């Protein structure tokens, strides 16, 4: 980062710099406030929340809300906690992200390096799929899942998300590979590499940045999806649906501290993905524009 700061053409005075940092700090605090509220209230006994200040630090620190949210809270009719749903989400999101990214990469490879008659049409149609609202496909999708015998199962959800995600991942990889020199593919053909060898040995090793973009995009979308999960989840509903059931339950007292803990649990994986891969994300988004 130091290099970036040194690179800026405009040199700023000391006072302006302090002002800028103060302003940035203020914004950062503002954005962190909700997280603070959630964090602080998830480690308080319920009485402190209902009786007192939401903003205050807890008088008695406790991890019970977290334990409850994870393993004992009432979700719908069962007192299972969020744990089984969290696992459902993981079982759904990992294969769905992996498959849609790999298929997107293969599509991008074929659409740029193995052009065929009507390839721009195919790509146009795939792009079009990015603009179809979720609601429109609900009923046809339900019919298809039913016919395939995948309704109400994790594989069914994986299929739905893969189908829905391919449009985006294809777009990413196609634009990235369009800037990749075709002469390299020709050289590899002369060298005797086949379709998959060229993909595996020549293209994939330089696809890191765009793969990160695709993974982050797909991960956040699939993890945070509610509509497909609620519609097709059946008995294997994902985390988002379970969290909704936890928070919206109309029976008994509202355990805000448990709700806060559950909400953090639900947001944690995407948060981690962003923190780990975030800087590659920006780099990958830039890569296409700089090279192309």
């Amino acid at each position, binding site marked *: 980062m130091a290099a970036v700061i040194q690179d800026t053409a405009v040199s700023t005075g000391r006072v302006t710099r302090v002002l800028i940092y103060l302003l940035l700090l203020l914004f950062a605090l503002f954005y962190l406030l909700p997280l603070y509220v959630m964090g602080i209230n998830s480690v308080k006994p319920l009485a402190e929340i209902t009786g007192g200040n939401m903003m205050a630090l807890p008088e008695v620190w406790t991890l019970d809300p977290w334990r409850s949210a994870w393993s004992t809270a009432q979700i719908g009719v069962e007192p299972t906690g969020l744990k089984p749903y969290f696992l459902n989400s993981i079982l759904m999101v990992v294969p769905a992200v992996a498959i849609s990214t790999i298929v997107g990469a293969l599509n991008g490879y074929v659409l740029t390096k193995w052009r065929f008659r009507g390839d721009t049409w195919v790509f146009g149609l795939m792009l079009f799929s990015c603009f179809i609202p979720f609601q429109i496909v609900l009923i046809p999708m339900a019919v298809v899942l039913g016919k395939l015998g995948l309704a109400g199962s994790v594989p069914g959800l994986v299929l739905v998300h893969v189908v829905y995600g391919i449009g985006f991942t294809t777009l990413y990889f196609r634009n990235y590979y369009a800037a990749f020199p075709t002469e390299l593919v*020709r050289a590899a053909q002369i060298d005797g590499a086949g379709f998959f060898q060229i993909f595996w040995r020549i293209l994939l090793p330089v696809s890191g940045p765009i793969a990160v973009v695709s993974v982050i995009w797909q991960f956040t979308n699939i993890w945070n999806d509610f509509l497909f999960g609620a519609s097709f989840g059946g008995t294997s509903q994902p985390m988002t649906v379970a969290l909704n059931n936890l928070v919206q339950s109309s029976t008994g007292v509202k355990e805000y501290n448990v709700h806060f803990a559950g909400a953090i649990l639900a947001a944690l994986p995407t948060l981690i993905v962003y923190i780990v891969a975030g800087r590659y994300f920006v780099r990958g988004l830039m890569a296409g524009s700089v090279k192309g």
Partner: protein
Amino acid sequence: MGFLDIRNVTKSYGQVEVLHRVDIAIEEGEFLVLVGPSGCGKSTLLNMIAGLEGISGGEIAIKGRVVNGVHPSKRNIAMVFQSYALYPNMTVGQNMTFGLEMHGVPKPERERALADVAKLLQIDHLLDRKPGQLSGGQRQRVAMGRALVRNPDVFLFDEPLSNLDAKLRVDMRTEIKKLHQKLKTTIVYVTHDQIEALTLSTRIAVMNKGHVQQLGTPKDIYDTPANLFVATFMGSPAMNIIPARVVARDGVPYASVTDAEGAPRLLRFSQTNLAAWDGRDILLGIRPEAITDPEGADRKSQNIQTLANRVTVTEPAGSDTFVTMTLGGRDAIARMRADASVAAGQAYDFAVNMEKAVAFDPATEMRILP
């Protein structure tokens, strides 16, 4: 039958034919250069030999085996691309042995081939680097090394020097020529630089608009161009093309050209058969180096004619001085010794080596054969 045969090959994209019945037989060990202006189909022809482009008509055979439809990797050819096309994620060593690996050559053998070629090209110290860490000239060497390692029947080069700066280009040109003389490999080399074509080749195919205009040795192409296109494309500065009329005196043909003042001047032809063209217009082709100061004229020539004319401009260029004059209503360039005493505006007696002059039929633009 040659080593590499291109028989009546055509190429069409949809309705558009971009190569028309190209017919070239290349012997083993030959260095054939395909040269021509941009868009004339050189790369297309090379890619068809490589198998990267389909063949619309005719056939291509390597060592007597027709390779139409054979996969590029099964033709035993290697190609050096204009952009070098080095795999960015692999080291130089991996780049060079990738082809062998794909062909299932065992590792010890690959290592041996790599070591030999790396030594030959003096890139042993670069083998562990990535292409991004190399200079243009080094990348060029690696690209050639990748081709050499395979020990193919035919090497294909597509403008391999055009991304280098002027000095390096000349060095690498010499290097490629040395390599060819040492290894005696069969090479097809594409360029649009006529100097590269003349210096490197054993034979040149001059192409224009998808037609081979002339196929011959550099000397054939330079001294006896088949038509106006070849005459003006090859050579720098270009051949002077001067409108002239043939005048026969006692059966001896002369070219009558008008000087700067519009007065006719006679230059005797060496080709006696031009007497048949008595009274008709032709285009007279004379290379700049065939018009000199009298002291600089070729002593071996049997036919030096004197041409009195006014000098328009002189351009000293170090080793030579280029002199421009008006001849037949057009600018003509003479190439003089550097210390020839000649000044702009002056009347001067030029020495014209008519042995080297060629005549073209203005209607067909073809050379009138002697």
